[in-house]
């Protein structure tokens, strides 16, 4: 877990929250996680800065009742830090990590796809000719359903496009 801790120390939290531009649930989850991390680190720092050994010699010389000191020393020696089984938690964390990595990869794939689409659109915009020069053939080549719709209307004996007059006005001179 040493590597994990050093990684956690190296993490630049402000950079994460500003540069990635995270929003919504992810951002709040990240905030909560950061808070937990900060709290835990502060607690560890506080605890480790406190003295861990007791000068029993000093107590023995100042106190008359050395038996009490001996008893306390015995207790102190007998004290062992309670081992806490974190295996299950680590397992849960690992499972969560797998899940997170998977969803992150999914997000990455989606973002990449979006990026590619956007690049294509950008290229389209850059190479597009002015709207005045756009021909019906070009639009119909991009959207074949225009031709199929035309064919359908004409074969049914309909010679007007629904919604056209409402949008472009009626040129009828009568």
């Amino acid at each position, binding site marked *: 877990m040493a590597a994990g801790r050093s990684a956690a120390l190296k993490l630049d939290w402000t950079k994460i929250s500003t540069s990635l531009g995270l929003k919504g649930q992810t951002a709040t989850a990240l905030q909560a996680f950061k808070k937990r991390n900060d709290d835990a680190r502060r607690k560890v720092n506080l605890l480790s800065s406190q003295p861990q050994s007791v000068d029993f010699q000093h107590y023995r010389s100042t106190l008359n009742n050395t038996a009490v000191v001996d008893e306390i020393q015995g207790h102190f020696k007998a004290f062992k830090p309670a081992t806490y089984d974190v295996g299950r938690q680590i397992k849960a964390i690992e499972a969560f990590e797998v899940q997170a990595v998977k969803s992150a990869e999914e997000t990455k794939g989606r973002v990449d796809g979006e990026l590619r689409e956007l690049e294509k659109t950008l290229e389209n915009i850059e190479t597009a000719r002015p709207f005045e020069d756009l021909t019906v053939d070009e639009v119909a080549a991009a959207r074949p359903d225009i031709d199929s719709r035309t064919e359908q209307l*004409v074969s049914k004996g309909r010679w007007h496009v629904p919604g056209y007059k409402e949008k472009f006005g009626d040129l009828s001179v009568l």
Partner: protein
Amino acid sequence: MPQLVPFYFLNQITFAFILLIVMIYIFSKYILPRFVRLFNTRVFITKL
């Protein structure tokens, strides 16, 4: 009045008939569908 001569009468009618048929065919097959296509394109473009 030569148009009263049956030959010219028939000639005139035949010409008019053939031309009308040809015009109706070309209009309905090639020219008018292009208007519908143009209108379709315009409607589609404004929907983008």
